[in-house]
């Protein structure tokens, strides 16, 4: 734990803004799990709840940005304090995007609930979502604890999400080739899988912010990229 400021109000401001991030993170974690469950269980009510809940996440992002602007204007933070405020703004943006993806997932769930299921893909998507949710939980813990090892671990785990997405991508291609009547559902499911994969990237970005807050440096882009779907269909690829 860092030493306290002589100005105790400064510590309170920093604690308050961190608490808002945690609150926002908690809402996004629930949104991920609820939206994935609504897909598997074909629960349109739960999906509607996720869609409505995104407003609260958006409002928190606005509140966090306002608090951060205020903190910069009033306290002129430097060093680790400055990095904390900058990271808070970035993380709130990452979380807000994740919230939007959950909302989108919930929208597609309402459409998919009317269609026949595509193999076991819903369950595979839920496994992927659960893993992203665990990563988010861990990265928020890492943020609070200033634990760069845990953050690096979360960052590394994103490759598993990429692999899960690759597998789903190929599965959807197969289903679409087998029967064109599967195309609509598969397109929706593919967007869902892609959006969850994007959430993994946002969680990874939060992990990088943890490392930045502690060390002052953003880690190099040396992670192995296992999302190869951009090259699918390339001749000789």
């Amino acid at each position, binding site marked *: 734990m860092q030493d306290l400021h*002589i*100005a105790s*109000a*400064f510590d309170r401001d920093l604690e308050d803004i961190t608490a808002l991030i945690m609150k926002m993170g908690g809402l996004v974690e629930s949104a991920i799990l609820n939206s994935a469950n609504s897909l598997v269980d074909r629960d349109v009510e739960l999906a509607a709840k996720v869609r409505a809940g995104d407003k609260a996440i958006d409002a928190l992002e606005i509140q966090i940005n306002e608090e951060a*602007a*205020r903190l910069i204007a*009033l*306290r*002129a933070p430097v060093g680790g304090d400055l990095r904390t405020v900058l990271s808070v703004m970035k993380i709130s943006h990452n979380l807000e995007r994740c919230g939007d993806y959950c909302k989108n997932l919930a929208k597609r769930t309402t459409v998919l609930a009317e269609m026949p299921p595509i193999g076991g893909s819903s369950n595979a998507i839920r496994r992927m979502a659960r893993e992203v949710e665990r990563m988010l939980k861990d990265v928020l813990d890492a943020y609070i604890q200033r634990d760069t090892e845990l953050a690096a671990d979360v960052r590394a785990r994103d490759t598993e999400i990429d692999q899960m997405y690759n597998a789903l991508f190929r599965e959807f291609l197969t289903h679409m080739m087998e029967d064109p009547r599967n195309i609509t559902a598969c397109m929706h499911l593919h967007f869902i899988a892609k959006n969850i994969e994007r959430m993994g990237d946002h969680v990874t970005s939060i992990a990088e912010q943890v490392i930045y807050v502690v060390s002052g440096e953003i880690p190099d882009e040396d992670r192995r990229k296992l999302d190869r779907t951009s090259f699918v269909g390339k001749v000789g690829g």
Partner: protein
Amino acid sequence: MDEIKISAQDVNVFYGETHALQDVNVKIRDNTVTAFIGPSGCGKSTFLRCINRMNDTIEICRVKGDILIDAEDIYDRQVDPVQLRAKVGMVFQKPNPFPKSIYDNVAYGPRIHGLARNKPELDEIVEKSLRRAALWDEAKDRLGQPGTGLSGGQQQRLCIARAVATAPEVLLMDEPCSALDPIATAQIEELIDELRQNYCVVIVTHSMQQAARVSQHTAFFHLGHLVEYGETGQIFTNPQDKRTESYITGRIG
């Protein structure tokens, strides 16, 4: 919402021919730190000095309009300026302890105002005041030593202890940290934040960062006018007047 402690209505101040303050209207809240900012000569110190009638000591100075503390006009003929200044304490730019012991510095006000009936009561006031000023732990073993022997930051806290010893309701501070190093400044600022629980604090400062850090409300003065008065966060993130924006962003002097 905190109650209004000081209310100024159409205050105008003249130094001879110079019209130093023009039509100032402001309501200052109790249990709040209110900062006055603005370039030199803008009238912020003049206005501060109106609040405890320090301007009475300047012969060519005339004050028009009303200043009410708790709805009582402090410029009323029946108000004794000496009593008023016990109620409205002041801390100055440079720490100015009396050339007396630490104890006597703090005990001076209570003695002349007859606030203590006996030595134990006076001891109690001195200890309480030094505690309020966050100086007790550093000073308790050297109360008999001269106040001028303390460090600059300690001297300023001694002056704050001296000001609170007369049980004031309002504390005026005229650039209380400008002669102090950053650590002593931070300590005084933290103290100001604590003092607001018991007092209405008004601080004049040239440091906009200080105003931002310590105050809940900020008033910006320019050329004798109160240009803008509002919640400190709003003043520093989204000022409504172009002159305020220019000043806080460093565009006019």
